[in-house]
């Protein structure tokens, strides 16, 4: 089950679940993202790759990361310990397009929290379908 999705922009974020622990996990995972982004050679990922892969395993969760061109970070925390990379990639792609649609809303002020109801619904649909596709 995906327990948390976080969008960490330059300074803002939205979350699906607000348990304190997940906040901590998401916050710490930013360090890993920073390291990956700052040392692209070491991690071997190409510059154009937005998907950052598994960031780090915690005792109960796995944390995956994604970085958009505008340096907005998506972080996925899941309890699935056996996740296929392709699924996560696919998830992030869909989530990214949902995010792009949400911030393209003319009533959205860049930098503020995303309050769109539609976005929340779309995200929960994507989250649900993630569980299904990995089950197949």
């Amino acid at each position: 089950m995906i327990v948390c999705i976080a969008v960490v922009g330059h300074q803002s974020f939205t979350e699906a679940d607000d348990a304190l622990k997940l906040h901590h996990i998401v916050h710490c995972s930013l360090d890993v993202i920073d390291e990956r982004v700052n040392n692209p050679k070491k991690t071997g990922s190409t510059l154009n790759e937005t998907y950052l892969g598994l960031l780090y395993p915690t005792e109960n969760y796995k944390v995956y990361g994604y970085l958009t061109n505008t340096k907005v970070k998506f972080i996925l925390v899941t309890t699935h310990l056996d996740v296929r990379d392709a699924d996560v990639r696919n998830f992030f792609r869909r989530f990214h397009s949902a995010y792009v649609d949400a911030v393209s809303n003319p009533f959205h002020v860049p930098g503020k929290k995303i309050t769109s109801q539609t976005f929340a619904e779309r995200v929960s649909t994507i989250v649900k379908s993630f569980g299904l596709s990995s089950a197949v």
Partner: protein
Amino acid sequence: MEEYPEELRTPPVSLVSLVGCPELHSTISTYLHSEQPPINTLALPDFSKISVLSRSKKETLDSGQPGGILKRDWLLKHRTRSPAVVAALFGSDDVSGDPAQWLQVCTELENLKAVVRGRNIKLTVVVVQSFDKDEVSEDRMIALRKRAEIDSKYLLTFVQKSSSDLKHSLNRLGSIVAELANTYYRDEGRRVKTCIEKKSFSSVDLNIRYCFKVAVYAEFRRDWGEALRFYEDAYRALREIIGTSTRLPAIQRLVEIKSVAEQLHFKASTILLHGGKIIEAIAWFRQHHAAYKKLIGAPEVIFLHWEWMSRQFLVFAELLETSSAVIPSNTSLPLVTKDNKPLTESEFNPAYYYQLAAHYLREKKCCLELALSASEAVAEIESSADSVIPSVYVGQFARLLEQGDALVMQNLTDAEYVLYALAEGKRFQDSFEIIALLKKSFESYSNLKAQRMASYCSCQMAREYFSVGKFDNAKELFDGVASLYRKEGWTTLLWDVLGYLRECSKRLGSVKDFIEYSLEMAALPISSGDEVQSPIHKGEYGPAGCASLPQRERIYSEVFGIMKGESGLTSNEGNVTLNVTPERPIRLEIDLVSPLRVAFLASVAFHDQVAKPGASIFFTLSLISQLPQPVEIDQLEVKFNQSECNFTIASAQKAPISATSIGKTGARVVTAPVLTVVTNKWLRLTYDVTSELSGKLECKSVIARLGPLFTICCQAESPASMNDLPLWKFEDHVETFPTRDPALAFSGQKFIQVDEPDPQVDLVLGASGPALVGERFMLPVTIVSKGHEIHSGELKINLVDARRGAALGSPREMEPISTDSLHVELLGVSRPDGDDEPQTGQDNIWKIQHSFGLLSVPFVNLGGSWSCKLEIKWHRPKPVMLYVSLGYLPTSNGSTIQKVHAHKSLQIEGKTAIMIGHRFMLPFRRNPLLLSKIKVAPNSNQSTTLALNETSILIVSAKNCTEVPLRLVSMSIEMDENDIGKSCTVRQRDESQKDHALLVPGEEFRKVFSVIPKIHSPNLAMGTVCFTWKRDSGLDKQSDSNITEAGIITRHKLPDVNVEMAPLVVSLECPPHTILGIPFTCYVKIQNQTEFLQEVKYLIADSQSFLLSGSHNDMVSVLPKSEHILGYKLVPLASGSQQLPRITVTAVRYSAELSLPQATSTVFVFPSEPHFKMGNLKEKVTEIVTTGA
């Protein structure tokens, strides 16, 4: 890792037993120990002690159902008690001695053999050679070897005659012993391995034990591959017996299995890491972790599981940290393990494992506390720990009972074991262990610059300190974490940390901190969230609970209760009571970076940018708060940098708190109808202040008084430069402007410039047109007092280049600063009374520089005036800005009053007054042949050439370029260095020319000079024209200034001329005018000035206007130094100004043509004899006629 016994932590070391010759034991031991790999020695001084080597009774019994998997002391036994090799040392004396001695040797050897054979221990015999004796005989040696039943190479003689011998002997002994030990361990390994292969073991437990033994024997031989393989086999076999084995009660069974697994895992990980196989090691650890994570065991001893888990992480972290293995940098990433699971960078970092070790230890602590609270029989726990000791098997415990003299191990029941475990658990201070682990993790993350991870660790550390009641430490750590969360805007995390901080300060009795943290929490942007905590998250949240709006409101009302002194707050645990007393009023400072800006923010905007002194200055004071409920303020104090402007705003709703606090200094007090700050709504108040002082008036702070004991001092902020509220800016809430006027909200400043009072003095610069270059330009400056008296006035004068805006003669002009190079210069200031000298007095300043002047102005009465004249001289034409400023004090007393300044500026053009030109002309109707003129091309830049001893004419002209009339004083030519008479004669041609001529603007003045060069010179200096003039001041010729003022001299240097001798001079003699039809004679004189005969051709052209007699064309010879005259008779045929027939003379010697200039060879022909009426003129005409005739 430290709690593991040494024999487990380090690779096994071979053990060799030395028997006999005790004096050599220490030498040999030391040597063997320093071998690579080292060999331990078990030294037995004499052969009677060999029984220790024999198999003990217990060991021989080891056949039936095993009591456990691994024996606790098996590794230790092989390190200290069970040697691989026995080296029997015999003195050579004994060996080669008498039969009795020999027999003794044989007996000892036999006994030893008997002991050794039982355990397959290898034997080597060493004959120690005495220093002075000969070698042992060959026969004896053979006999000895046979007795010992050993190969000949294992019998060696130990020679110690010299150090090299000793070394050699030790080397040999060492290599033999190592070889034998290796054989022993290989044989032992093989023996056990056959058991495994044949499956000749009664239980799986034994299988595990055998695998373990084979692995250890392999380690003895440094065969890491085999060791690893068998450790893995053992580990796998162990995995299988979980849940199936029933040999022990369930709890203890699991404990034993985990202990064994731990050991096997440790061994395998160590080998992997020391072999540099870091990826494999991590994968192995992962698998180990995954396999045992779920095996939590019985609920009452879950804490044992977490403790075990924590230890796994800790040990692996320590192994990772100490191992030399590095993360392979060249392998392609993402790193994957063999089973294709990705690895992350953090898994290579020991900090990750330390952190998890701490996490599990925390888990253990929680479970232990739970278990302890569940079991009521505390006394029973205390007693049960007595006499329980670890039993002979790894991971087992037994009760030691005294039965008579003997001690008997009695197995424990699970219930007993649980009590024992609880008692053991209670003994440890887990919190400090957790903090230590987190600290390691924190340091490691900090070194990696993983700031957020590090702060998470420090947050955990702080929570641990908090739980053990070390609030000081906790608060310090939490403060650091909170600043990061504040900076990055993680509200939920910040809420939690602040909750802890609030609690810490409560426990520490720090009211101010408590209020600050509470206010910050109450103002955090949290609007949603359930108040009810879901039971799952219980314990995860700090003392503040889950972030929610009702919580914020609760905190708010609590803290305002304390602040108003209504209620004290007693902390539950400590005896600290938080309340505000009149002795200790609370004052909070909120500056531009304070986190409390969200709670209170004061913005001040002046409506204007500048103001007049004494006038009302309006400004808007705006307050905003994000606190969840409206804040009622009793009074506001507004503080300015000019303390006279400070004033107080009191709420009309509340009576003044205390008269003393307000009216003490007589400051202004105004009342406002409402002083309540509503959440996220600006409270705007507009007031005016009056400032008498010029300069900057800045609002420093706004102090809000809430209740008698509590004040908040907010640093005032300008709306134009105000930062957003750090956390609220991401929120989707209504944002309003601090001022009603939106423009002011963007541009408003908290300071205003108060002007100086207007000067009531006129400063007049009396300019009179442009200045002329060279003159001392007088500029009158007049100061007229119109409403102020002038005290200690100071006049500053500045001359600035109008185009460049820089001071004149500044280094930017790239000219050395000297008086000459200055284009415009301030020469001085003349006082009206004519006293140019500075008066000697301390108050008087008198400073004149090239472009700057400073002088003091004496006291000027009301209505009085003072003036002076500035003397400025232009060296070059240039426009100049003149700035004059007067600073003065309007009253004589009081130095506090600021100076008033009056400024005036004026642009003055500097113009060239006179343009001087000159022209050389040939003498009238006379043309000398100048050779240099013929040779050189006419357009070349040749200086003027004049003929020697011939009179030339110089015309000097001076033009008035100004717009004012000028009066000529004199014009002359001065020779520079040469005496005039010697080189050439320059004479004023027309003496009657009157001086002091008036030159109106644009008029040109000419003067004619005749020049006779006397010296033959290619460049003869002609001197300088000196033109002296002055401004014409109209009719007022007698005025003082005109008399005193000398003329201004404008100089014009004449160019050098070339003087040469003319060989021929042609001149024409002809009357100036004739009458039509009347013939006249015209002579052409050709003068030869040379020493040679000159042949001269001449040609006369016909003219329509004249009838001509005489030869047209001929060649004549002119004798040296003589003159030839050609005469012509001419009859004019036309009247008016007529051109004479053109005569061209050619000097053959020089092939040079000479002709007279056209302008001079004209004659005026009257149509008839003129009749003039005026007498004197008629006379003159007749004179002319006569000449003509």
